[in-house]
């Protein structure tokens, strides 16, 4: 192979050499230098010649392949052109040329209707006597055959698998692996031939056949474990194949249930592989052992010993592989790895910085308290030599270490602060800051040191984001320290020296000092007054506001500071509510001061409380996106007098588009569910400039949703171009039921044309209708996704008589996780106790769901999922609810959907 590649390049090199012979000796250059698509396409014309020059054609093909691998894109025409000219090269019998032709057919993908043209030629090659032809054509054929054609040539594939020539056998086996995806049924018929191929003397054939055999059986656990046990007993010589078996074994072990008291199956085999001749096998076995589920120290020991030997190997690859695995193990089993510490320490000075980084971080994980100081010292010198991404790894490791040994925070803090002062990118600095903040959170006494380091850092920090974050932290934490005064200088320096964003943050921090520490207030006032003449609006505004809060009327006269003002209630205020209150206030004569107490507080989500009080970190803006949406709807609805007495809004469903995109009018529907009413809100947009719509309403036909009764319709009076307007339909239903059905809806309106020249609308309009897609109501609309912590109790609390059980097939799914998500979405319930996550490779799963009904009761569902070999998913749905009706409604959702 390699020698042939050389041949192909040689002439190229000679050609180029003529052009610049002088430069040639100076540097090594690529034979592919300066290849251009246009030129190569021109050259490709020689393929058409009656007398093909095999040598020249090979060169051109090599260039084409080079372009393809460089990611050069060919237009459809170019690709077709080149492809067909290449097919003419089948007339030349040169094996090297033919191989390149195979490659180009594979790499250059013409349309599937065109590529079929080479089928007959390839089939002929496959049945020829030339091994090189056979192997190559098989590899191409597997790309272009469809299942009907494959059946025709199936027997040749079978013959090829047991072919004496390893090239052919390997090609057929690998093709089998590829085709297994598209035509599993056909390839499965080859298993006896593949079984024979496992006995081959050629290492590569053996490897490929083991891989294919494993794939063939991979759907069937029992067959797999049978296969693996027969393979582990058999004498597989090829190291590659042996490694493959180790991987299979690892999978089998992972899939099989582990019992604590029982010996792990195949563990002996893995251990025996540790004594194999091939390093590849040894490593794979060690890796498999290390990654075993719930591996014990005793099981780990032999693998670790082997890896320790690798650590002192002369090959960098082995050292890297070993140290990487040990690094992973060190998280869960630091004790097991600590034996390797001596070897690991020599690796810190390894030439390869990746190895060194991994070694250091492993040591940090396994190290004991006494060795930390020494390590820190070694690391400081080492940090300058590695790239940012490695530095981040090290910093994270230090962070973790500090949590483990809080008493050592001093040396770690000084390490962090020293690296903080060095050059580095944003990500790196951010991770250091995060590490410091993390340490502050866990080790209380480290706070003052940390703050001092941070103060020094912001003196010379180029990242606005980090500066503001630290200033916020200083404002929060600084006043609580023993000497708050010393931080003021650092903060004020920022006001003098930095950009507007940082200045504004500094003003806020400064004001915090003034408010929390009364003794500092006068000094802070002086400083704030200086910033009143800042040239940035935000900074001035903040300074003015804080001065007021600190009781300064800008005349220098001292006042009693106002008690902690309400504005600082901070983020608990609902922004939408605040805006509305302010608007209302602006409508009044504004004789009285605005009263903050009237502003509704944002509903606090319980999650927020459990969040660690990360100072200045993630804002709380995104806490309750959908919650505020709901309250927005509620507010809007409450302003309509007709809806005022419907009671509290239970749920607003997601908006559903009722027309295709880019039509004359766009209409979407939102269903608002109340205790005994449903409000259909239609948001409409008129996209025709020459029209104004008036008296727009939606006519809902309830023929197929008899449980509802139409109460009233509120039309939109006017819908000009490009404006969103709403019309509402109020439906009543019997309280406590969950009616569902389909409603045929039509948009009705009066159209008035607008004269495009004058922009005036015509006096008289005409009535018109516009059909909309149907509105569906499903029982899921009456359920609120609410999680509960103890499903068992809630389940038992429900009346068993309400239980309804049924089974459904829900068709093919990519994975069980997919199916679970789909079912949870359709049912409109929330998954409890983390059952929405399916463990990988699971074939069955149980999902626990809960939701709240309009009447305030519960609806609980237990869904058993099962998946067969063809990815067909079946579910068994068991429902209990407040009443039989609720349970049956839930079944109706699945039956309908």
């Amino acid at each position, binding site marked *: 192979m390699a020698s042939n590649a050389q041949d192909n390049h040689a002439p190229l090199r000679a050609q180029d050499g003529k052009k610049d012979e002088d430069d040639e000796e100076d540097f090594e250059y690529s034979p592919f230098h300066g290849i251009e698509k246009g030129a190569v396409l021109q050259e490709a014309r020689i393929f*058409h*010649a*009656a*007398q093909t020059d*095999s*040598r020249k054609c090979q060169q051109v093909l090599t260039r084409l392949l080079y372009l393809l691998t460089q990611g050069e894109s060919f237009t459809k025409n170019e690709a*077709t052109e080149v492809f*067909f000219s290449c*097919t*003419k090269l*089948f*007339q030349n019998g040169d094996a090297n040329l033919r191989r390149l032709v195979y490659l180009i057919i594979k790499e250059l993908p013409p349309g599937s*209707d*065109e590529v*079929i*043209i*080479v*089928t*007959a*030629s390839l*089939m*002929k090659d496959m049945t020829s006597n030339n091994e090189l032809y056979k192997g190559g054509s098989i590899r191409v054929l597997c790309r272009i055959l469809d299942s009907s*054609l494959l059946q*025709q040539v199936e027997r040749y594939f079978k013959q090829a698998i047991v072919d004496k020539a390893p090239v052919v056998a390997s090609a057929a086996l690998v093709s089998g692996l590829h085709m297994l995806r598209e035509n599993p049924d056909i390839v499965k018929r080859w298993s006896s031939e593949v079984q024979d191929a496992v006995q081959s003397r050629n290492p590569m054939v053996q490897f490929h056949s083991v891989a294919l055999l494993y794939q063939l059986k991979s759907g069937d656990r029992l067959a797999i474990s049978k296969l693996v046990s027969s393979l582990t007993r058999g004498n597989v010589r090829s190291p590659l194949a042996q490694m493959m078996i180790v991987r299979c074994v690892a999978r089998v072990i992972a899939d099989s249930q582990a019992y604590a008291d029982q010996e792990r199956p195949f563990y002996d085999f893995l251990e025996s592989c540790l004594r194999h001749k091939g390093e590849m096998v040894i490593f794979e076995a060690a890796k498999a052992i290390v990654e075993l589920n719930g591996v014990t120290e005793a099981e780990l020991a032999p693998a670790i010993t082997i890896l320790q030997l690798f650590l002192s190997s002369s090959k960098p690859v082995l050292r890297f592989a070993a140290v990487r695995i040990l690094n992973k193990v060190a998280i869960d089993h630091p004790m097991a790895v600590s034996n390797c510490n001596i070897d690991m320490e020599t690796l810190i000075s390894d030439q390869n910085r990746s190895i060194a980084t991994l070694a250091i971080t492993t040591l940090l994980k396994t190290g004991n308290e006494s060795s930390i100081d020494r390590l820190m010292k070694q690391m400081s010198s080492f940090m300058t030599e590695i790239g940012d991404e490695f530095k981040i790894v090290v910093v994270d490791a230090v962070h973790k270490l500090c949590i483990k040994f809080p008493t050592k925070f001093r040396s770690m803090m000084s390490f962090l602060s020293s690296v903080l002062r060095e050059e580095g990118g944003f990500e790196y600095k951010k991770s250091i800051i995060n590490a410091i903040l993390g340490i502050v959170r866990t080790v209380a006494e480290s706070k003052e040191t940390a703050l001092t380091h941070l103060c020094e850092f912001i003196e010379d920090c180029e990242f606005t984001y980090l500066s503001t974050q630290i200033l916020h932290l200083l404002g929060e934490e600084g006043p609580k320290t023993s000497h708050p005064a010393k931080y003021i200088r650092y903060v004020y320096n920022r006001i003098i020296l930095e950009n507007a964003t940082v200045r504004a943050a500094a003003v806020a921090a400064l004001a915090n000092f003034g408010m929390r520490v009364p003794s500092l207030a006068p000094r802070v006032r002086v400083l704030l007054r200086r910033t009143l003449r800042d040239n940035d609006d935000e900074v001035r505004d903040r300074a003015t506001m804080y001065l007021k809060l600190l009781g300064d009327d800008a005349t220098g006269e001292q006042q009693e500071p106002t008690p902690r003002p309400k504005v600082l209630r901070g983020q608990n205020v609902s922004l939408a509510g605040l805006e509305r209150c302010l608007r209302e206030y602006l409508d009044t004569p504004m004789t009285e001061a605005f009263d903050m107490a009237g502003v509704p507080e944002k509903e606090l989500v319980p999650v927020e409380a459990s969040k660690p009080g990360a100072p200045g970190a993630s804002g709380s803006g995104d806490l309750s996106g959908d919650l505020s949406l709901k309250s927005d709807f509620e507010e809007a609805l409450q302003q309509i007098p007709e809806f005022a007495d419907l009671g509290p809004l239970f749920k607003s469903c997601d908006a559903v588009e009722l027309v295709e995109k880019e039509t004359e009018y766009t209409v979407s529907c939102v269903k608002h569910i109340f205790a005994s009413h449903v409000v259909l809100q239609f948001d409409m947009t008129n996209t025709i400039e020459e029209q104004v719509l008036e008296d727009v309403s939606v006519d809902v036909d309830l023929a197929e949703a008899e449980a509802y009764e139409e109460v009233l319709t509120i039309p939109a009076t006017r819908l000009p171009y490009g404006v969103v307007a709403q019309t509402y339909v109020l439906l009543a239903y019997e309280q406590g039921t969950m009616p569902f059905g389909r409603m045929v809806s039509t948009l009705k309106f009066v159209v008035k044309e607008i004269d495009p020249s004058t922009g005036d609308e015509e006096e008289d309009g005409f009535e018109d209708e516009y059909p909309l897609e149907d509105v569906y109501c499903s029982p899921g609309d009456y359920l609120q996704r609410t999680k509960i912590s103890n499903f068992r109790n809630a389940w038992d609390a429900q009346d068993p008589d309400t239980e309804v059980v049924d089974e459904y097939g829900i068709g093919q799914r990519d994975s069980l996780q997919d199916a679970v998500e789909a079912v949870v979405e359709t049912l409109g319930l929330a998954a409890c106790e983390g059952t929405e996550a399916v463990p990988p490779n699971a074939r069955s799963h149980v999902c626990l769901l809960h939701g709240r009904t309009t009447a305030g009761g519960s609806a609980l569902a237990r869904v058993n999922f099962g998946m067969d070999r063809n990815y067909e998913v079946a579910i068994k749905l068991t429902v209990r609810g407040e009443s039989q009706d609720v349970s049956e409604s839930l079944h109706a959702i699945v039956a309908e959907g």
Partner: protein
Amino acid sequence: MGFLSKLLSLFGGGSKQVKILVVGLDNSGKSTIIHKLKPNAEKKTSVPTVGFNMEAFEKGSLRFNVFDMSGANKYRSLWEKYYKDAEAVVFVVDTSDKFRMCVVKDELERMLSHAELEKVPILFFANKKDLMNAMSPVECAKYLELETIKDHAWQIVHSNGLTGEGLSTGIDWLAQSLSKKK
């Protein structure tokens, strides 16, 4: 390699290569004819060709590189990709299939009107003469209006692909007109 091929051309291998396109409807006997033309061909039954097949045989001083195209309906549009540098065309007609003679005519017209087909000689094999209801070459020529072909030298030969009858007559004519052209 270069030296070797030179050597080869010195010693009798110096046959001139010509590219020939074999077309015709499906099941008209193209692959059978080509197979028969090859020396030392063992007997075998042909299966429908998918795409095209590449064959070669020698006749006199000429080495024929034959593109045996598939005649199936969906692949006929691909013939044109090979018109460009074909030096001769062999058009095989199934004379027993009167029913599809109009399709043959259509395909022939389409081929003749194609811009990339040069003024190459066209050899028609009125194949399957052994069958009872076979048309004679004259009838064929008349039906296909071969006399209207002005741009190409053409010849129609009655043939039987299974026995090889008439094949050498046709190929001889082709070899003759090809060497005349050069």
